[in-house]
């Protein structure tokens, strides 16, 4: 095992001989990595509405990553009997009902009024890190896997955000989440 003195020496040598620069990804590489991460991390599963296809439900790429369709007004969620079933979702996979209430997946396209067009990369990173909307507001609700995605390193989140800013903007105003029925009765103004 190295001693503290050896470590100091190693650090000093490294400081002296290395130029300590990291090759930064080009913008194109950054976007490509972001696309790779979005594609492999399941973002489309919930943020791109599903539609019936020849082989069953498939993502509707004409509405890529635009979240729950604003024109799909959901009826009240079914009330599940006591038992092991806990969660229901819409056929689009963009509306989810559970003990937290009803959540709708967000519009991740760069539309400035309904998507992420006015967000900064800091807003995006703060959201994923904190599990709060814009990093400061209401809690991000299930099924968004914040406990998983909060493990992304900064470079990955920056790449994801870079990619999301390049996809086609889609104007789609996603509804606000609904509280659980008990809360809806007692505290919603």
């Amino acid at each position, binding site marked *: 095992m*190295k001693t503290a003195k050896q*470590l100091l020496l*190693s650090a000093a040598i490294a400081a002296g001989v290395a*130029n300590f620069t990291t090759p930064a990804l080009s913008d194109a590489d950054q976007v490509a990595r972001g696309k790779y991460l979005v594609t492999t991390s399941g973002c489309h599963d919930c943020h791109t509405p599903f539609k019936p296809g020849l082989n069953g439900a498939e993502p509707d790429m004409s509405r890529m990553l635009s979240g729950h369709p604003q024109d799909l007004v959901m009826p009240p969620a079914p009330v599940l009997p006591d038992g092991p079933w806990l969660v229901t979702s819409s056929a689009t996979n963009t509306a989810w009902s559970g003990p937290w209430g009803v959540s709708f997946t967000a519009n991740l396209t760069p539309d400035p*009024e309904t998507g992420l067009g006015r967000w900064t990369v800091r807003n995006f990173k703060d959201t994923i890190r904190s599990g709060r909307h814009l990093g400061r507001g209401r809690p991000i609700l299930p099924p968004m896997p914040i406990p998983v995605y909060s493990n992304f390193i900064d470079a990955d989140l920056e790449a994801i955000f870079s990619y999301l800013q390049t996809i086609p903007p889609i104007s789609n105003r996603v509804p606000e989440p609904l509280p659980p029925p008990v809360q809806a009765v007692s505290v919603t103004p």
Partner: protein
Amino acid sequence: MTRFTHLIAPPFRPDQPGRARLTGRQATGQVDTWIRSQTHRVKRLLTWLAGPASALAIFLAPVSILWVALPANGETLPLLLSETGLFRPGEAGITAPGVLTFSPQYPLWSDGATKRRWIYLPPGSSIDASRPDAWEFPPGTKLWKEFSVGRAVETRVVERLEDGTWRFAAYVWRQDGSDAELAPSGGIAALPVPGAPDSIYGVPSEPDCRACHEGGPVPVLGFSALQLSPDRDPGALHAQPPGTTDVDLRTLADRGLLRNLPAGLLNSPPRIDAPSADGRAALGYLHANCGHCHNDPRESGAGVPVDLLLAQYAGRPDSAGAVIDSLLGTTSRFRMTGQPTRNRAELVTLRMHSRNPNTQMPPLGTRIADAQALSLMERWLASELQSQNSSNKINSPAKEILP
């Protein structure tokens, strides 16, 4: 030096604060901060290693990158409040020399809890006040805020570390008041406290501390030119009269604890330039409770990108007008289900009233709505603000809120 482990052979991948786990022969712990050393930082790195450092481990990449891991807060934060420097050694409750008391004129609503506040600046240091709304605090600065509900329940600590980063912690008071103990970094969602709303008191998590404190240009929220102005607002809600030993803008300057403060702010202390007493109090309340997020994103880079500006700026004489214009705007990304609103001011009031966690404002730190603030807002809305609205703005498109 604290301690550090052996080198770990590459490849390695530094992870995020609080997530990576180091395993060495001497130590295993959560990593708080990863710092990639560029050439200009090497000197500082070596200083850490040689001095009273908190470096836990060094990692050498095969080429060109040197990473340093600093231990997580939980490893270095004192376990007791009495060990944070607030009190004289062995005398919990008696503040230590050099610790100053202060009282912001517009306090944060905390469900009616009473509060006391302190600040400590290292000897010989001072605050750079050249940016009136983004004071630069010296490393070693500490601030404490004590929350009481019948008795002291919690004391929160904000500290600026030697590397310039900030850390946040909460301490929960023992029943006998002998000391307070470090709370888990994940907070305590439901601490039983008689007298608190529903007899439940929430101790914030460390991320929730950052959610509010890191939304503005500087993480210190209640210690600023406006909050410490000697020209205090007599109509400010929930304000506690300043104590005889409390520091304010003038006493800080007199003691040499502020440098580069624009002289105009001493000659004419900051004051919200509102057309009425209610307007002044309402704008001050919105500043203290909402402005740390709803601010000019150009100042902080972390404000929320919505068309609602609620922060006051001591360095901008037009702040009150800018906020009023913002409140009178009619566009909003947020739609309150079943609650049509004419302007953002009405929407703000509705969200202040709500305690639905998806809707309420502020979004954390409070379980019950502030009845006095709602009354003030509704009074102000019904008179002054709405008259301005109906006279010239209600049908106009939303104004650009940021100068």
